[in-house]
């Protein structure tokens, strides 16, 4: 049965008229749109175990039964045409184990993404996502020796079925929201990371993503498990070329930080300005574990992303540092969720947003303190910078406290660049654009400081690029 359905699919693929931008053959191309049969086929074509097929089908049913969110940018959300999206595409290449074997055009893509030479030394441990399938993957030997698993999610499911089954979908269940359900039904690619007890991974694990096709949906699924006393940093950097039609990117990231572990997840999101970036990122932190989300949203048409940390064990700590960059036409609806459910837990949230032209940045934050969370501490700081008179920022904080001795602070500031600040800097030779860029750099300095050196350089360059032509 299985073989036959794959055969059928291959025939379907051959009949398909290729109209993608890259002169590139896809191994399997599905028609646009989604139904239960297709969800089953995705699972079968990947050769997944029965439980995953069931998980996907169940998630699909939840997806169709859930209405669109009625909050956030509903106008843009309701423009998504789910029938006009491809849900599964994979390149013809099989997994590569060395850089030399990576196809030339993909290397060129990395060139265009501007990955600096200095970072390529890290590439030995890279997961590069091209379309929906991981085409390049290898693990540095020292990582393998330490027992660290860093692979794409599909391989993870094949090679480590017990670990995956134990944790997959436990942090972000399909019921969580419509887009988490969609991802659960059609996920492909993403990373699977397992760090064994007591292992401290000294280099950041990195993944590069790219959307390349018209109306292409990307549904990565990332699962990171840090076992007791381990430490790991994961970096996800995304850029995408600009296409006129809308794309949907709906990822799910789950982090499990077991007692005394430390996990840091860094994202630099720079999707093209037509991408819907609707992402569910959540972490659970057990006793004395520490989780950090470092999150930059620069690209996309609409981002809706609220990295969350559930502090479930005594003494667990969370940190969320985010930057959102909203230019004309963009809406960055970002924020954070901190749930404190154990004694002596603490969290800090630092959110910075910059609105340019008619760009709109929103901060949506939830702090929830359960009565179990004695001595809980949370500090939230939201700063917005408006560059132009038509720029917009909104803050929607929700604070729910059931433990009387919890210490919660929330501060929000909105500032504008004044004409006199620009004049002062211009009197020292800077153009208006350079002056604004300098002020923006200053505004997000505390974020840049958190990034590894190469990323800080890349981020600075990205901001300078974003600021180009921002002065009317």
């Amino acid at each position, binding site marked *: 049965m299985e073989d036959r359905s794959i055969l059928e699919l291959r025939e379907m693929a051959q009949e398909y008229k290729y109209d993608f931008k890259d002169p590139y053959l896809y191994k399997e191309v599905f028609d646009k749109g989604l139904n239960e049969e297709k969800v089953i086929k995705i699972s079968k074509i990947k050769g997944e175990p029965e439980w995953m097929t069931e998980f996907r089908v169940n998630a699909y049913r939840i997806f169709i039964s859930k209405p669109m969110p009625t909050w956030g940018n509903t106008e843009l959300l309701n423009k998504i045409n789910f029938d006009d999206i491809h849900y599964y595409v994979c390149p013809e290449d099989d997994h590569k184990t060395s850089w030399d074997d990576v196809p030339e055009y993909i290397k060129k893509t990395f060139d265009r993404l501007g990955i600096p030479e200095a970072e390529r030394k890290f590439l030995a441990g890279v997961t590069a996502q091209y379309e929906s399938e991981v085409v390049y993957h290898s693990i540095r030997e020292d990582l393998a020796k330490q027992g660290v698993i860093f692979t794409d999610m599909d391989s993870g499911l094949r090679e480590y079925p017990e670990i995956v089954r134990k944790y997959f979908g436990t942090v972000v269940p399909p019921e969580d929201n419509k887009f988490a359900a969609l991802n659960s039904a059609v996920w492909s690619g993403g990373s699977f990371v397992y760090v064994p007890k007591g292992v401290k991974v000294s280099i950041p694990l990195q993944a590069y993503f790219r959307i390349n096709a018209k109306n292409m949906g990307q549904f990565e699924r990332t699962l990171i498990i840090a076992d007791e006393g381990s430490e790991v940093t994961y970096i996800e950097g995304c850029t995408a070329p600009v296409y006129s039609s809308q794309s949907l990117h709906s990822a799910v990231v789950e982090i499990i930080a077991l007692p005394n572990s430390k996990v840091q997840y860094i994202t630099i999101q720079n999707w093209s300005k037509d991408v819907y970036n609707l992402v569910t990122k959540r972490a659970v932190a057990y006793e004395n574990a520490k989780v950090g989300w470092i999150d930059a949203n620069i690209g996309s048409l609409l981002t809706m992303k609220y990295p969350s940390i559930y502090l479930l064990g005594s003494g667990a700590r969370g940190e969320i540092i985010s930057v959102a960059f909203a230019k004309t036409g963009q809406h960055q609806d970002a924020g954070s969720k901190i749930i404190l459910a154990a004694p002596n837990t603490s969290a800090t949230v630092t959110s910075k947003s910059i609105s340019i032209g008619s760009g709109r940045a929103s901060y949506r934050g939830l702090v929830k303190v359960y009565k179990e969370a004695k001595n809980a501490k949370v500090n939230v700081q939201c700063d917005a910078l408006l560059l132009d008179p038509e720029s917009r920022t909104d803050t929607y904080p929700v604070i729910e406290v059931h433990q009387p001795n919890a210490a919660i602070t929330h501060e929000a500031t909105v*500032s504008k660049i*004044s*004409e*006199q*600040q620009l*004049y*002062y*800097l*211009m*009197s*020292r*030779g*800077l*153009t*208006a654009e*350079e002056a604004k860029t*300098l*002020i923006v*750099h*200053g*505004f997000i*300095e505390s974020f840049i400081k958190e990034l590894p050196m190469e990323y800080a350089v890349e981020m600075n360059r990205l901001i300078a690029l974003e600021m180009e032509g921002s002065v009317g």
Partner: protein
Amino acid sequence: MLKIVNLKAKVKSLDKPILNGVDLEVKSGEIHCIMGRNGSGKSTLGHVIMGNPDYEIEEGEIYFNGQLINELPTNERAVAGIYLAFQNPIEIPGVTLANFFRYTTKKFYPENIPYPQIRKKIIELLGKFGIPEDTMRRYLNEGFSGGERKRIEAMQVLVYKPKLAILDEIDSGLDIDGLKQVVRYINEYVEQNPESSIIFITHYSRLLQYLNPNKVHVMIGGRIVMSGDMSLAKEIDEKGYSWLEGNVVS
């Protein structure tokens, strides 16, 4: 170097005329002092020369090295060699002094000079003006004392080496020792850069005793009503401004 002809300017937002026909010529290598009471328009003159967007030129011309600069953007005036030390430097939270200098010096130093070399020089100059090195990590003018602001504004003359430096009320906020020190370095700058010119704007004559200006001007009601040499400053020191007010033709 600088030639101003019948300059009339107003505050844009208030539609209020401030400069009512200023004529001024500063030749290369000269030191000028512009004196006047608060509200006489002397600070406005400095800002209009620099191109402050708060003001609008209604009439007249500003020439710098023979070029009409009425419409020139502020940054191009700066790069052309005009520097204004602000009476009230603007606070820019988030921008450290180090980042400020890293960006601005690019406009005044050749590309082949590596930044660490420039940075070293800036730290030296800060030290010379009595500003500790760790100030580089502080945000531009935020929480700086009046004295610190003035020292850093004056010190930037030595960083950017302008052809024309306008020092607006550099004496206010500085104690006598601080003032002497600042003026000494500015005088040294002029000695070492004999082509450069300086305009001091002040309403106190105490500054003048440390200077040897080529010309002293008095501004009243948005015009230069009298020009002379040091003896004019001495007369103002003795008699104040009121004896001049009768001379103003409205």
